């Protein structure tokens, strides 16, 4: 509250780059800034976060702000659960209200097959202590009275996976709160600083070449999501990742009547109503690969048609803005997190549509990896190496269109 009456810079004005940093984080999004934030806890403060545009300009500022932990695999559920728990305490930790609304998360089922996947997720979640259960259409109606759950629709609702701790958060606030904390801890945030190359000598990265000069680095972290394969190429590291666009849109604000996040994998939509009253909606990843964030008309058409199946009263709600962001998709829909074959070059990649949900736990575990030089147990299943061992962590059923 006291900050209301004080105008203070959130972060320092960028200065010239120093010649050397202990840690260079590439990517000023939620992962990069979270890592810088948690590095403070380990006393590592000679850190630079390099961002080619403004902070939060990539996936961190383009996602649909949904948090949840009801994943399918035990490894995934455990990991995202830790993330949601960190998010729950993050507003206080950062002294910045991230507007985290744990309004609950409904994944709708429209078929036996979907019910089967939901039942499995509910059971896996329950066994891990995650609040998540299978509910019938009546209970769905209670949680989302505005939704049409009757039979006269192309996709009648057979049930849903209800995940009460899930919800929405203000994505930009996450970026700004983390940036302020990282900056206060001594880390330098350098927006409009593009990485042009990495100098590798043997098994180590020795230098980072940027549009604003070259720096030496003890450890380099690649937190660039959609661009992670390009950055890894500079380090001579290959990732089994393809980059696609994911689109979203928002309506003009109307008086709130939907207090829960609704997802339908079968219809490829997810929808929530923000505290401003806007409906925020998104769809599935587009199948083609691209680095160009050009949206499509098809997206708007399919999304609106499907959304109106569930919420016919939105027919007059007006689409205000649509946008696209890049997603780095891994073969098993789980992230690639931690070490690479280059000793001091670690990655946070393969995030598909679920990276923002993981930001704090990625920051915490990557910071721990940097500080201790040991891979935290929580992220061991997500090592790049798993693709060489053929030991995959399949989240396809829970992550493909399940925001």
């Amino acid at each position, binding site marked *: 509250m006291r900050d209301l009456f004080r105008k203070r810079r959130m972060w320092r004005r960028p200065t010239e780059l120093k010649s050397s940093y202990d840690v260079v984080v590439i990517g000023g999004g939620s992962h990069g800034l979270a890592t810088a934030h948690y590095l403070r806890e380990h006393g590592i403060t000679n850190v630079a976060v390099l961002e080619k545009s403004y902070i939060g300009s990539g996936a961190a500022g383009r996602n649909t702000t949904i948090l949840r932990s009801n994943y399918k695999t035990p490894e995934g559920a455990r990991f995202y659960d830790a993330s949601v728990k960190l998010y729950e305490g993050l507003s206080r930790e950062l002294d910045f209200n991230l507007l985290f609304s744990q309004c609950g998360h409904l994944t709708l089922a429209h078929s036996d097959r979907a019910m089967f996947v939901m039942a*499995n997720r509910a059971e896996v979640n329950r066994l891990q202590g995650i609040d998540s259960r299978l509910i019938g259409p009546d209970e769905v109606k209670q949680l989302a009275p505005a939704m049409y759950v009757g039979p006269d629709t192309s996709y009648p609702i057979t049930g849903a996976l209800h995940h009460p701790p899930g919800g929405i958060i203000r994505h930009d606030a996450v970026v700004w*709160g983390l940036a302020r904390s990282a900056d206060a801890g001594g880390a330098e945030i350098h927006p409009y600083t593009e990485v042009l190359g990495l100098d590798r000598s043997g098994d180590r990265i020795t230098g980072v070449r940027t549009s604003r000069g070259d720096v030496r680095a003890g450890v380099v972290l690649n937190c660039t999501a959609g661009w992670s394969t390009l950055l890894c190429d500079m380090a001579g590291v290959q990732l089994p990742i393809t980059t696609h666009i994911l689109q979203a849109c928002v309506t003009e604000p109307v008086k709130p009547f939907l207090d829960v996040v609704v997802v339908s994998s079968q219809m490829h939509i997810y929808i929530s109503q923000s505290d401003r009253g806007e409906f925020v909606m998104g769809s599935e990843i587009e199948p083609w690969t691209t680095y160009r964030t050009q949206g499509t008309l098809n997206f708007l058409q399919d999304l609106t048609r499907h959304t109106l199946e569930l919420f016919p009263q939105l027919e007059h709600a*007006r689409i205000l803005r649509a946008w696209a962001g890049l997603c780095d998709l891994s073969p098993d829909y789980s992230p690639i997190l931690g070490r690479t074959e280059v000793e001091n070059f670690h990655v946070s990649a393969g995030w598909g549509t679920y990276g923002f949900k993981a930001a704090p736990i990625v920051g915490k575990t990557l910071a721990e990896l940097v500080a201790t030089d040991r891979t935290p147990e929580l992220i061991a299943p997500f090592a790049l190496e798993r693709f060489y061992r053929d030991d995959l962590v399949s989240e396809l059923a829970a992550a493909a269109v399940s925001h």
Partner: protein
Amino acid sequence: MDGAAERGAVAVARDGGGVVTRLPPQPGERIDRDRPISFSFDGTAVPAYRGDTIASALYANGRRIFSRSFKYHRPRGELCGCGRCGNSLVQVDGAPGIRACGEPVRPGMRVEHQNAWPSLERDVMSAVDRFAGPFTPPGFYYKTFIRPRSLWPLYEKLLRRAAGLGRLAPEQDERSWRTEYRRRHCDVLVVGGGIAGLAAALRAAELGADVVLCEEDVEPGGALLAEGGHERARELARRAAAAGVELLARAPALGFFDGLVPVWQGDTLHQIRAARHIAATGTIEQPLVFADNDLPGVMLSSGAVRLATLYGVKPGERAVVATTGDRGLHAALALKRLGVDVAVVADLRADAGGGELAAQVQAAGIGLRRGTTVVSAHGRAGVEAATLARVDADGRAVEGTAERVACDLLVVSGGAAPATSLLLQSGARARYDTASGRFFADRLPADVHVAGAVDGHEDADAAELSGLAAGAEAADALGRISSQDRRLLTEQRRELAARPEATAVATPPAVARGHGRGGKAFVDLDEDVTAKDIAYAVAEGYDSIELSKRYTTVTMGPTQGRFSQLASIRMLARETRTPLGDVGLTTARPPWSTVPMAALAGRPFEAAKRSAVHGRHRELRATVRWAGDWRRAYDYGDPEGEALAVQRDAGVIDVSTLGKLVVRGPDAGELLDRLYTNRMSTLAPGRIRYGVMTSEAGRITDDGTVGRIDDETFYVTTTSSGVGAVEQQFSWWLATWALDADVTDVTQGVAAINLAGPRAREILSRLTDADCSNEAIGYMDASEATVAGVRCLVMRIGFVGEVGYELHCAAPHGRSLWDAIAAQGARPFGLEPQRILRLQKLHILVGQDTDSESTPYGAAMPWAVRLDKEQDFIGRWALEHAAEHPAEAALVGFTCLGGEVPTEGAVVLVDGMPAGQVTSARRAPLLSTSIGMAWVPAALARDDARIVISDAGRRIAATVTTRPFYDPEGKVLRS
């Protein structure tokens, strides 16, 4: 009714007690004074004329407050007069967010205000404006209610209660608004129907092009319609229509999607693909930023003039005009002619343009203040006075120059911003032009032309000329122009370049302020963002255009920054001491004009596939449900009885949903060998083999049968939902490997009916002359035969575990074949009994029993992989790896000791933690027990191993089986 009274002055009591009149008929006005109509506003009848907008009719009837603002609930009045601003959002017949100043009235329409309670005049929430100001700087919510955490949900509930503008029905069962798509291909699409757009369309059409022109307003003509050029504009529109141009009115172009332009017009979404695009999108007049610049009565000059000339409504009695260029001077003269007492014009230019226009203003008896602007408006519910002053570079009033002028109308003109959104979406770059203080679109894509004011050609003659040239250029690009026409074009371009520069426009200060506290100076009216808010954001470090936008939400409201982007850039430039051009624009995003979801959604249906026999299933009262894209018969009321009938007698099932591909050519066998994990090229004609396809990673992607018809022809079946992906996969690799074969998807053209059970052979032999003995057509044989008069491919396949014949025939014959079989006493069975039967045989369903991580080895089908094949095949390297490294999990059968049927998806436990999952489970009627399939840790994949299943907390004990429950040796199948 007395005609004179009706046409003359309809006097109505004004809300505030005053009286306004309609002006006498105006040349070119849009209203039809002979056709009075009536609609309601907040329950009260409002008289209007056909041709009025909601706002013009309300204004004529004295209404000055049209909405309450988003955050502070401040009263807002008419601003733009053209349907672009967010000041007049109302609810019409239940639809929120309608722009009252652009929406024509219809008799009986029900109009209601938004975001105010109990009324627009007395809004309880406006207390926020008076008392909460200091507590609500931008992002105030980020800084409050952090501790204790438990209070945040409560606070959030209050925030949500205050949020939103319009109101939607809390519940609704179906869409009430039917909308359509229309696809239109043309040579040239012109966006914008002002004089430039019309000229461009006309010229291109004259030169033989097929031209579509779309215009936001109810008629083409643009700015000229209200500015004394209505005859010229309408004549040009007539000529364009006569030349064959398709004119779409009230039809905004929503975006530019790689050449595809959606245009929304009422119930129709036109999807227009043109070879060339001409953007004649004009400019958007900008407001000025000063204290209380949002008071009702502060109006853009174009809005005030439109209101008067198009709708015959007097915008005010006594006006003050503040301008940065000639526009304001023109407006002052026009309003004066219409009988408005224009007291003063404040022109920010030191010389007021220095020309004839300024002299005319003075000659008309209007006070002209040079180098002066408005620093404050005064009034409570509307403008009562304005303070004018000279300002310094920082926008602060120079001591001793302030002058307070009483007025009820404050006309502002802060220059014109080119409407470049569509151009930027098409890939053009924004360029700041220091001389004119505007952002233009530069580096246009090759298929995009530009004409008129958006390109800087503002006066009517220049705009028309540039339109003619753009139209000719587009036609030229299409190869439709003669050398003579090309010479003319060159001439026009030269003439255009030689025209004198438009008169100078002054760049207004980011914010103009008087002395003392002053009221809020809004940069963005939609979002209630003030100049102070932006300064605050910059001071906090949100010092780029994108960050300050996200923090203050400036430009993020319903008008998408049309009236606030330039002002926010000026504020940012000022606060960061950066040149305007370096601040840059935010990304231009679609849609250009907000659009109702129904208009984008088109018709509300999902395409469904139905088999040729579907009608029969309906008649038999089948339970019909979705299965992928198909509507399928799940059962006919008694799934267990149907399953028993198949096992004891005979059953018939419609399996037309199976994917069916014909692969033909000398290399057909080679292609299949490379795509399936086993060998298909060695298959003898007339034989069938089961096959599995995997991804590069060796994961099962689909399965099915492959039958060889002759040396070069294979008939392939796939899973029902997988055929699209399989066909894609086949075609992709066929092209990649350049094999001599072709693939045809015949799924929809072929019906397939499976006759199975102990009596199946008998029934088949009654319907055909062909030899049906086991010797003639044994298990996994295929042959052609005529069955019940229908030519069929008969395939002896046993998915359900009994002797079975899959009969594939041309879809139109499917129903008669089905009828003939059913008439022989085979009982129809649906998908559900089939699932029970196949489960007894442990036949997998891809996608049910396998997931994206299942290999053939894990799925207990090592026999389906032939690593001894000489060919490389998709997934080979991964399967070689898998063959050497035993899978950690395996797919097995199980029976539940207590007869329970666990939920599919239940978890297999080891040490209390998830270690596997149940993929299928059913009661098996013939076996009188419950059976299922599950993924279990490899160590438990042996007969009689005990497993524990956790199902919604319930623990179920089960025993593992690795062999089929029914006919494990396959004797029945082969009999």
